[in-house]
């Protein structure tokens, strides 16, 4: 019952954060000095067309009213319409969302699958040659931006070997094989970098556990090293890793913006960049808000997982709620 209360509080605080974040997004676009309509039309536009656009977008009405309208639109899935084509934003974004969601989810899965065993292995073998080599490799992988890994993968597997397509996308429903072939390289590009970071966190979380008194107790009652790590290390280390992995999932969605542009995937990230270049502010505003919301939701889910996993946090919860 208490756990439910904690979850309810988390959700409430998520709603608060979403509200504040939406206000920040709206204010940055609309309340910063400089006229929205003038920005959209660019430096060489005439006052008449600016006035017309202001009229069409309803920019003369009070800021707060426009914010509330936009918020309502977000909740119903129709946050306004494009400043250029006039098309409803919901229908522009909808199909792109699936591409980005696939890209991010598959990258995260691949990243975790790569990182947890590797991190554990390099923690246990941290003083041996192979542990040091893994450590070094992760350092290098972390120093490389997503898009660069993407470019290198493209050169090797698409340009030189011609195993996979260099760019483009096929929906899962029309041809699953082609869908997969198009996603392999972008997913790998994100996963490699994310896994490198994750490996370091997993490694240091496990090294922390190895230094804990309870780990020594586990060894003293007769667990061999590796079983002790698995029985008593995994759960404790996973607490730390989950927090980090959550923050990473956020960074991964952002990484997908760049990688979509490398591989010309028709996802939210590509659409966002197109909108920025076309100065289509309503579309930019909506897509940024979607990304921000995804990040906040992920963080809340991570917090809830953390609370369910750690008995100490569960108890502390009761303390802080007072």
């Amino acid at each position, binding site marked *: 019952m208490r756990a439910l209360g904690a979850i309810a509080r988390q959700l409430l605080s998520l709603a608060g954060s979403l509200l504040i974040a939406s206000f920040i997004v709206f204010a940055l676009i609309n309340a910063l000095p400089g006229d929205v309509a003038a920005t959209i039309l660019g430096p060489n536009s005439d006052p008449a067309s600016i006035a017309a656009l202001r009229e069409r977008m309803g920019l003369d009405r009070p800021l707060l009213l426009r914010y509330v309208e936009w918020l309502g639109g977000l909740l119903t899935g129709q946050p306004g319409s494009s400043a250029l084509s006039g098309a409803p934003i919901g229908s522009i974004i909808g199909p792109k969302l699936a591409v980005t969601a696939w890209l991010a989810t598959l990258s995260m899965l691949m990243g975790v699958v790569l990182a947890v065993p590797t991190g554990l292995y390099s923690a246990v073998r941290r003083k041996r040659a192979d542990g040091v080599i893994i450590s070094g490799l992760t350092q290098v992988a972390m120093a490389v*931006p997503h898009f660069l890994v993407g470019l290198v993968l493209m*050169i090797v597997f698409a340009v030189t070997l011609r195993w996979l397509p260099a760019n483009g996308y096929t929906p899962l429903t029309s041809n699953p094989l082609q869908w997969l072939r198009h996603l392999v390289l972008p997913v790998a590009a994100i996963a490699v970098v994310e896994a490198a970071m994750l490996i370091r966190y997993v490694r240091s979380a496990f090294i922390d556990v190895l230094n804990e008194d309870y780990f020594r107790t586990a060894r003293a009652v007769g667990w061999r090293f590796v079983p002790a790590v698995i029985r008593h290390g995994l759960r404790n280390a996973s607490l730390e890793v989950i927090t980090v992995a959550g923050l990473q999932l956020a960074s991964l969605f952002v990484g997908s913006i760049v990688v979509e542009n490398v591989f010309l995937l028709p996802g939210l990230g590509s659409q966002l960049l197109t909108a920025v270049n076309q100065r289509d502010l309503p579309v930019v505003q909506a897509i940024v808000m979607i990304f921000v919301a995804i990040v906040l939701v992920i963080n809340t889910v991570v917090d809830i997982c953390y609370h369910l996993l750690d008995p100490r946090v569960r108890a502390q919860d009761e303390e802080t709620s007072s």
Partner: protein
Amino acid sequence: MRRSHPLVVGAVLVGLICILAVVSFFWTPHDPGLVDASIALQPPSRTYPLGTDGFGQDIFSRILVGARICMLVGVMAVTIGALLGVPIGILAGMSRRHVGRRIMRWADIFYAFPALLLAILLAAANGTGSTMTAMIAIGISSIPAFARVANTASRSVMSRDFVAAARSSGIGWTAIAWRHVLPNILPVVLVQVSSALGRAILAEAALSYLGVGTQPTTPTWGRMLYDAQKFVYDHPAQIAVPAVFIAITVLGFNLLGDGLREALDPRLRQEA
């Protein structure tokens, strides 16, 4: 024996890039902006040490000037993040627990605004991106990490008895913050500065690559990669040079951070 290696290697790499940036103010082999289609895409030679790009511009000159932007954005962004984030963290860490938690909750909202998103927002609101918007965006997005690190560290300092001792002899809160809290959390903040620099430089490269940061007329490593991408089929080596420089710089800062962490954390020191 191995323990000091990351620190030394990191310092050398970072030092190297700093030297490049400084040199670029006084000397470049060619004008980095000079376009000459007749000498486009040349391989490295005596005149063009790293070759020329698709516009016939000298790559080495552009790398030198790019180092300047890269360091400028990195340092300024991290300064913004640290100057705002660390005081927030200390304030939260020195407040009573539930007040501190509330302060941190506010700071955490910025976690929802990664550098890239914030930069895109600023660029969109401004019409175009610039070095300034990139700096501000990266800086603001690094606030919560600084605040979190400073908060945890100062809370643990506040629980030590030397703070109680200072309070019991009438030392005020500001003096405690300056004399006890700040010096004791400085090591972790330094480590954070170093890794934040690495991340800031990655973000800057991504922004330039996407064209929402520093404008394409100014040479940046990220933009050089974008330009090289056009020739990926016929001249794949074009992407190698800016790629290597980005990686070296970030690697340098990451190693520096790791080295500092090891050097400053007594527990790790024994462990190594």
